[in-house]
């Protein structure tokens, strides 16, 4: 039986496992960004999560906000480009909702995604339908709020599904932000790279939960 929630050390270990999984997604994300962007998203995400892995391995964190803030700050100063600012803002915004909390449960997930979404939209001004990360992040945040009373494991499965639907919705959208924008219709038929990396992140968090030691 998977734990209903994680301690801060367990969350740290969980995030470290996530890092390696995201590093291994480099080629998939490179191809996605080649189709409708400049081909650097995979390298950026891989560089970002490599830096986070080092950061989390070298120190402990007393509370969730300190842990999540460290993830956000590290992504912000290591990925660069649009997704650096976006992923950085997501975690930095999310950390604000976890002040002094020491238990990562479904409600922590809901708070992190809600505040993260707010920060991303304040920074990037994109909304659902603009073919950006928001198309996966918003449905994920909304679903997380609905299942915040469930176990972390169950909530994550729901949130992953919501994000995946949002990701798939980006296939038929034209981009209103970022390097795909000038493509017009030529962006149709391709998934948004940022929405893809965000959804892959949630999928790995969900599948890695079982490997977090008690």
């Amino acid at each position, binding site marked *: 039986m998977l734990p209903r929630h994680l301690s801060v050390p367990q969350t740290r270990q969980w995030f470290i496992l996530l890092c390696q999984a995201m590093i291994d997604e480099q080629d998939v994300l*490179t191809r996605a960004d*080649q189709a409708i*962007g*400049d*081909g*650097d998203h995979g*390298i*950026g995400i891989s*560089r970002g999560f490599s830096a986070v892995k080092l950061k989390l391995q070298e120190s402990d964190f007393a509370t969730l906000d300190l842990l999540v803030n460290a993830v956000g700050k590290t992504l*912000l*100063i*290591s*990925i*660069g*480009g*649009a*997704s*650096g*600012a*976006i992923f*950085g*803002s997501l975690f930095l915004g999310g950390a604000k909702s976890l002040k002094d909390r020491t238990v990562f449960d479904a409600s922590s997930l809901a708070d992190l995604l809600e505040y993260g979404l707010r920060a991303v939209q304040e*920074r*990037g001004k994109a909304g659902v339908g603009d073919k950006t990360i928001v198309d996966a992040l918003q449905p994920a945040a909304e679903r997380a709020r609905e299942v915040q009373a469930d176990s972390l494991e169950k909530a994550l499965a729901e949130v992953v599904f919501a994000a995946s639907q949002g990701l798939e919705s980006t296939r038929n959208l034209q981009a209103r*932000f*970022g*390097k*795909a*924008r*000038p*493509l017009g219709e*030529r962006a149709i038929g391709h998934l948004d790279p940022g929405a893809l990396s965000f959804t892959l992140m949630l999928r790995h968090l969900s599948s890695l939960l079982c490997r977090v030691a008690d």
Partner: protein
Amino acid sequence: MIRKLINNPAQVVSELLEGLELASNGAIRSVGPIGALARAVLPEGKVGLLIGGGSGHEPLFPAFIGANMADGAACGNIFAAPTPDVILAVTRAVHRGKGVLYAYENYAGDVMNFDIAAEMAAEEGIEVRTVRVWDDVASAPPERMDERRGIAGGLLVFKIAGAAAATLPTLDEVVRVAAHARDNTRSIGVALAAGSIPQTGEKTFELGDNEIEIGMGLHGEPGVRRQSFASADVIVDQMMQHVLADLPFDAGDEVCLLLNDLGSTSFMELLIVNRRARQVLDARRIRVHDTIIGAFCTCQEMAGCSISLLKLDDELRRFYDMPARSLGFTKGKL
């Protein structure tokens, strides 16, 4: 197998910046994390000019640091906007009490990272203003001007901003002149073959054997439309058509003309492009004050060029004509 004169592909940015620093013989130094460079000597009371963006487009951005040019540059990874910590480090280094102008090209990543840095600088009491370059007429319609991409026309804006920042006493005035230059600059590119990303060797785009793309973006972002290959004159006529109609440039105007190699197009071809561009301008009675030809804003070994036009008035001409010196661009006065 990536056939480029590089070492470890993952170290390309730090090594190119180290090479630039060495070439400057001490005039340019690192001022923080990798990617943060600034002039070693900066007069007190000068309005600071900070430019920057993703690497891989050299000489743009760091090779435009210099006298009457940029005071510092924040350089990101290949094709990735610089991170806020790098931008902030350069901001502190170039701040001489009169505030700092951020001038960079209008990409989502740049806008967000430079905004975050500007907020951080404000918290430290450093006033920052921003002028974004969006000279690529092919990247969005005129009514959505602020969604347009910045390409080689940025050199003209940075050159004028550099001259203004070296002479005008306040940030407001420097911002006004830089924005005025930006508003008078229009560019368009044409792509004949893709460059490749140093780390992966992957091509930035695919073109058919008989295809070219007018309006192609600097990072290989697809342009207006693909068409079959044609002679230089046919291509230049179409490019000039786009650019001249956009400002618009009218008879009696005086312009500066920039013909920029995107990476592997020869100076010979740029001269042939210039021949046609001048024929078009002369036919429309548009005078050319000065012509700059070379590789200033590139995309690795991409084949193709961009044409940029800056409409001059007395103010812009004064700053354009001022001498300037940097590793990637020099304007002499004998």
